[in-house]
Each structure stands twice: as structure tokens, then as C-alpha cells.
């Protein structure tokens, strides 16, 4: 399809992925991603017009359980222990509304 992705395209994808990339990384990615996309392009050689998609291989459909309240076995403190910033038992984040 294409041998190289433009750096603008790479920048657009990085922003969608919320992934900061340096200028060096942007340059390298445009070549490497192009090579990977070229490699997977072989898929287009096969006609799959009447073929269904497979996303689940063992045939399970709609695995449900009763919607019941269960006690959490893990304490609030343990769950918060890995958070970078905590205040009054909550995870603290940057302001989201101006």
C-alpha cells in the first residue's frame, strides 16, 4: 500500500494513542511502521468477501453472571498504594476543567 508513513501521519497516530514521541522517534517510526504495514499487506491478496470475522475462537457467546454486589477483597489503601498522588482516599489528578 505504502512504503513509508509521512511524519505528519505518524504524529497524528501518536496523538490518538496519547504517546509522546521525540523528533528522532517520529523519523524512525515513519520508516519502521511503513515496513511493517508493507509486510502485512499480503493479507489483501486473499479474497475474504463471504468470510465471517473471528474475534473469539472457542465459540463462547455472552458470558453473563448475576449482577450482585460482592465485597472487595482488597483494601482501599492497598489499591491506592501504587497511585502517584493521593488525597483524602482518592487518586489526585490534574485539573480537567478550566
Amino acid at each position, binding site marked *: *500500500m505504502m512504503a513509508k*508513513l509521512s511524519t505528519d501521519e*505518524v504524529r497524528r*497516530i*501518536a496523538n*490518538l*494513542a*496519547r*504517546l*509522546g*514521541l*521525540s523528533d528522532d*522517534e517520529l523519523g524512525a*517510526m515513519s520508516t*519502521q*511502521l511503513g*515496513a*511493517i*504495514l508493507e*509486510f*502485512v*499487506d*499480503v*493479507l*489483501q491478496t*486473499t479474497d*475474504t468477501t463471504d*468470510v*465471517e*470475522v*473471528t*474475534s*473469539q*475462537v*472457542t465459540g*463462547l457467546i455472552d*458470558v453473563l*453472571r448475576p449482577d450482585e454486589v460482592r465485597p472487595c*477483597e*482488597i483494601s482501599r489503601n*492497598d*489499591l491506592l*498504594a*501504587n*497511585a*502517584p*498522588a493521593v488525597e483524602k482516599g482518592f*487518586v489526585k*489528578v*490534574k*485539573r*480537567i476543567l478550566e
Partner: protein
Amino acid sequence: MSDKNTTNLSYLSIRQAHDLLVEGKLTASELTKYYLARLAEIDPKIQAVLARVDEAAVLKRAADIDTQITAKRKTGHPEKIHLLEGIPYTAKDMFLTRGTATTAASKILEGFMPPYSATVIDRLEAVGAILLAKVNQDEFGHGGSTENSAYHPTHNPHDLKRVPGGSSGGSAAVVAADVGLFSLGTDTGGSIRQPAAFCGVVGLKPTYGVVSRYGVVAMASSLDCIGPIARSADDASIVLEAIAGRDPHDATTIEVDDYQFSRSTSPDGLKGRKIGLIAEYLEGLDDTNRAVFEEDVEFLRAHGAEVSTVSLPSLKLALAAYYVLTPSEISSNLSRYDGIRYGHSAQATAADLTQTYLQSRAEGFGAEAKRRIMIGTYALSAGYYEAYYQKAMRVRTLICQDFMQAFEQVDVLIGPTTPAPAFALGSENHDPVTMYLNDIMTVAANLAGVPAISMPAGEIEGLPVGLQIMAAQRGEHELLAVARAFESEAEESGAESPHVSTARPEL
């Protein structure tokens, strides 16, 4: 009670260790100390360990298990001693282990202390197995050499200048080097089987859903499988039996008819067994690798198997489908690392929320994780979803159909596990596509969800190679019966057989 001078603990099987424990000739404490000493001696050479379980806690647990074992013996119930009771093991760093740091070999999880353990870790705890250490891997499972670990590479015990394979490279290396009796690995596209082949040990990827993924760091959720790396098919089957089963915490787990994997229900032996040789896997082999594989095939024939060649034409598309589906699922799964709730965070220095995301992820992820996030995001983005992700899911259907048709003709399928033995450290990690080609013979089993095992099957210039055996979905008993028969026939043939990797690494 025991005498260490008369009990050689080197390269024990699980049943041998179990018998010694049951007979009171060995204690779990002694066995644990043996492996801890072995680890201290070997790890500086192979560098397989990322985190050790607190040693005092490990020894206390071993002592408690010794008390249990003694009680069961003295009350006349030695049969209640589980095969894994008192058996030391290690786990890939993908498994959450409460109280022991878990990083998936990524900087983004450096110092992360899991608040709970994976279901499989809990199951092994419940039967009395003893976790010694968390071992190295490619970051988040992305790679086939363990060189993508954010911490350090691991060395192949058979040749320290070579990779152990990956992504479960630490697991294969410690099992080959006799550190612990088995290791837990994860396999999304060959990450249990390929390192097992490179290190001359057994790697078992079960049917998708037979083992719970709860509490295991997610790579590509529709493909991820959990399984053992061990030194024999029998040992692997014992571990599978202990970890398999439905889990309310993992809705994709399936029920199987018979969980007693360690007791084969199929008639043993290779006689009359219908084995299909995958034609597509032989095309890319060079003469040396083909010759070793053909000796394995002759060996199977000589022991009564009916070997025929089977074609699965869509396998030619398997690697491309895999490298669309996997990064797509990876980009989704890795979106949880946002620098907010856990893991590396740039929040303290970032200007705003968006910068917190961008910088935390930029600083925390390694190069291959970033590439896969980018490819996956691209493949799932508006305008490309149909051409890439949907197309790959349709090709996946064709691959599943090819496997189903093949298993109407034969009991199991075989092929080499890898196109060649372990490569040199630093030789292939510069070009992502070259690295991806290592997975060419292993990804199809994940796409189709079928069980597969890699067995030690000879050597090329002192480096082990693997024979891969695959069965139909839920065909673990058939798979393990063939693997056990191959193993025992090869052992009986002894040194004259080129098919058994008798060589133990000299370390």
C-alpha cells in the same frame, strides 16, 4: 531425616521430587535451599531473575509445607500430599504476585506492587508449590529474544552469547539451568514454545481459555494463553492440571471434560497415531534444519506413527494476520498505562492532564511497545479499520477452518517450533520485521486457539531445537499422549537417538 550427601537433587523431575518428599528422604526446605543456592550460583551468568520473593518468607513457607507433609504422612494419608506440594518454581514477570514486585519487564511498571495475585499463582499456592522468583521476558511480551526487557537481556544456558528466546526467555533459561522444577510462562504468538525450543526444554500452550488469564498482564487478549515451561511433558501436564479450570474472574475460560491432564486417557505410544506434517512449515527451512526435522519424522515413523503431509494453505497469511491483530489488541490493552492510577507517572512535572498522558507513556514504554501501540492505533483508526483489523479477523477465520479440516484427517499436526536454533545476542534486534519472522511457525496455534507443545528434538552444533506438536481445541490429552510417547521412546533410544536433547548446559 535426609542425607544431602546421598540424594542428588540435580535435574529432578516433579514425580522424583514428590516421591522423595513423600518418603521423607527430602524436605521442602532442603529442596528450596538447593534451588536458592543454584539461583545464586547461576543467575550472575544467565541473568534471568527480575525479582526474588523475600527469602525469609520463602523459607518460612517451605517449613510450613514440611509440617503439612509430615502431618499427612504420620496420619497415614500420604496420598493427600499434592504432586506440587513443596515444589519450588518461578514465574514470568507477567504474573501479578502480591507482595513481590511485578513489572512485565517494563519501566512503566517499575516498582509496582500488585495488590492481588493472579488466579494461577493462587492455585499453585493452594496446592503447596513454592514461588522463588519472578523472571525476565521481553517487555509486555513483545519479542522473541528477551532482549526487549527494559532491565537487561537474559543469556541462553547452552551458549551464553545467545538469546534464550522469548518472550518467556527467563522462564526457559531457569528451567534449562535447573533453577526450580518449572516456570509459568505466557504465550500470545509462541512465547512459551519458542524459548522452550531454544533452551532445550518443554513448553506447553494450552487451548485458549483452559487456563485463567486473571491477574496476568494483558498483551493481546484474544490470543493470550498461560502455560508451563518444564523439563518433561509429564512435568508440564502436572502443572497444567493444577492451574487449569473455569474462573469467574475470566469470562473467556472454558469448561473441559477431563482436567486430569497428568493421567493420559489416550492409549500411550506412537503406534497407529495419525500425524500430519505441516507442508507450509517445511518450505522455509534450510538444509541443516530440515535434516534434523526429517530425522524426527523418521523416528516417529520407526515407532509406528502414520505420518502424512498435510497442507494448510492459509498459514501463509498467519504471520501478517497476527501482526495486525496483536498490535491492535496491544494498543487497546496498553492504554491503561496513563500515569494516573499506577505505574510510572510524569504528573509531578507535566503541565496538564494531556501532557501527563503523553510524557508518562513516552518515558515508560520501550521502543517495541511504542511501535506496537502505533501500528495498532493506526490499524484501528477511522478509515483503516476495515482494511487491516477486519481483514485480519476474516483471515483468522480461514486459518481456523484450515485447522479444523486438518484435524478431520489426523490426530495431531507437527512441524519445527522455529526455523533455526537460538541466534546471537544483538544480532537481530535492529529490524522489527526480521524479528517478527521468528514467530512464523508458532503464531497460527494462537490464532486458531489450539493447544501446542514444543519438545526437545535434537541439536544443531550443540544448540537445542524443538519439535512442535499441535492438537485440535480441547485436545490436550491427545497432545500430551503423543508428547509423552515421543519423549519416552527418545529416552529409551538413549544416546543413539539424535532426537532427545540429552545435553545439559554446562554452567
